[in-house]
């Protein structure tokens, strides 16, 4: 416990977290600080390219162990399954409509790549290795949750039919294509390729992540300011409970699959994290009746900061106790 708190503390005073806090504070104080859309998009492209590439390189060096396929399958199952659990919890804990509940559930089945990145940098900070192909698992987990959500809505007769073309849109979503593409480039060019571009994708990575989290904080803060009263206590409770539930399930999956300590932590983080970029856009298309400020407030305003600050260190501590090492 002691240990967890100290790690959480150390984690809290990292430039990354503090940058997020700065953005959050600035937005809540109604400062006019903003980061241009093009710059924010540029940073996310950089982060996806870098994280994918490094994952690929890791695979090219450590080679593909048999757990790769299992991990991908586990990711798929988690992404399909977690929304069902989330939906059930939401029905119990909140008064959200079927459609809103399903839309929120989709976000928690999918993943937040920035949370994933934050977890990897915590692992690096403590010199804990992890399977490079976990970025591929992250990619695999992005979309399936959306299908589960649509199924939940259809089941309760609330429309939400699978819009034609939506499926390929989801699979060819820019961030998935970039993440997976960079992963393969890294896997093909390996250490040598990394040597060529590491001054770009490795050295400045954390700094860029700071500015990106500043932006995330600004957006989260703006959202919180505007959605006052939109989400009740129950929903907020869900947004903190669900990551814990997800992490535990992710822990189980990671152990079953036989991942390393680092891999288990990442699997927990992926399961615990909620999407706030790809899924919201998909929901506007597939479930327009769902209220965006509900799912954005919960995933970006509550769950994201929770994972960033307390969640990740907690998952790491738990994994260390159970996996050992």
């Amino acid at each position, binding site marked *: 416990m002691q240990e967890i708190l100290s790690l959480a503390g150390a984690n809290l005073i990292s430039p990354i977290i503090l940058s997020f806090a700065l953005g959050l504070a600035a937005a809540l104080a109604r400062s006019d600080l*903003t980061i241009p*859309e093009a710059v924010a998009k540029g940073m996310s492209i950089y982060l996806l390219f870098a994280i994918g590439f490094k994952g690929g390189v890791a695979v090219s060096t450590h080679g593909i162990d048999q757990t790769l396929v299992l991990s991908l399958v586990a990711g798929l199952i988690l992404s399909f399954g977690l929304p069902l659990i989330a939906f059930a919890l939401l029905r119990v804990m909140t008064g959200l409509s079927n459609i809103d509940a399903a839309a929120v559930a989709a976000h928690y089945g999918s993943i937040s790549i920035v949370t994933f990145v934050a977890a990897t940098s915590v692992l690096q900070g403590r010199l804990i290795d992890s399977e490079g192909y976990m970025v591929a698992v992250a990619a695999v987990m992005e979309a399936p949750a959306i299908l589960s959500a649509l199924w939940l809505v259809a089941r309760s007769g609330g429309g939400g039919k699978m819009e034609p073309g939506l499926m390929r849109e989801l699979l060819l979503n820019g961030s998935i294509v970039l993440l997976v593409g960079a992963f393969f480039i890294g896997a093909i060019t390996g250490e040598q390729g990394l040597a060529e571009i590491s001054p770009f994708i490795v050295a400045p990575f954390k700094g860029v992540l700071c500015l990106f989290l500043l*932006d995330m904080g*600004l*957006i989260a803060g703006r959202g919180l300011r505007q959605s006052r009263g939109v989400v009740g206590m129950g929903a907020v409770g869900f947004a903190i409970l669900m990551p814990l539930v997800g992490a535990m399930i992710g822990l189980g999956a990671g152990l079953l699959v036989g991942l390393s300590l680092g891999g288990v932590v990442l699997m927990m983080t992926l399961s615990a994290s909620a999407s706030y970029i*790809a899924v*919201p*856009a998909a929901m*506007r298309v597939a479930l*327009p009746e769902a209220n965006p400020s509900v799912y954005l407030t919960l995933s970006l305003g509550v769950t994201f900061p929770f994972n960033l600050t307390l969640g990740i260190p907690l998952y790491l501590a738990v994994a260390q106790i159970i996996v050992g090492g």
Partner: protein
Amino acid sequence: MQTHTAKRVEIVIEAPLESRLIRALTETGVTGFTILPVHGGSGRSGVWTREGQVGRAGMVSVVCLIKPERLDGLLDAAFSVLEKHIGVVSITDAQVLRAERF
């Protein structure tokens, strides 16, 4: 200079639906339009801005100039996409040069 009457239709629609709107327009034979970026706005669904957004958030504005007789077809197409979604459609009378283009 010789001008011709036309209608100017301005459709403010959610960015994630842009591709669908374009498809619907093209299917009804509307192949001329201009897409303007939208920086922010406010409506029944609340206030929003593009600042710092990473995903395909916010709205876009699609402007179509068409012959008056083709207006209804366009509106039906637009409405088929817009129906369940937020956004607005406005029509103004206009004059255009080079009618052959419309």
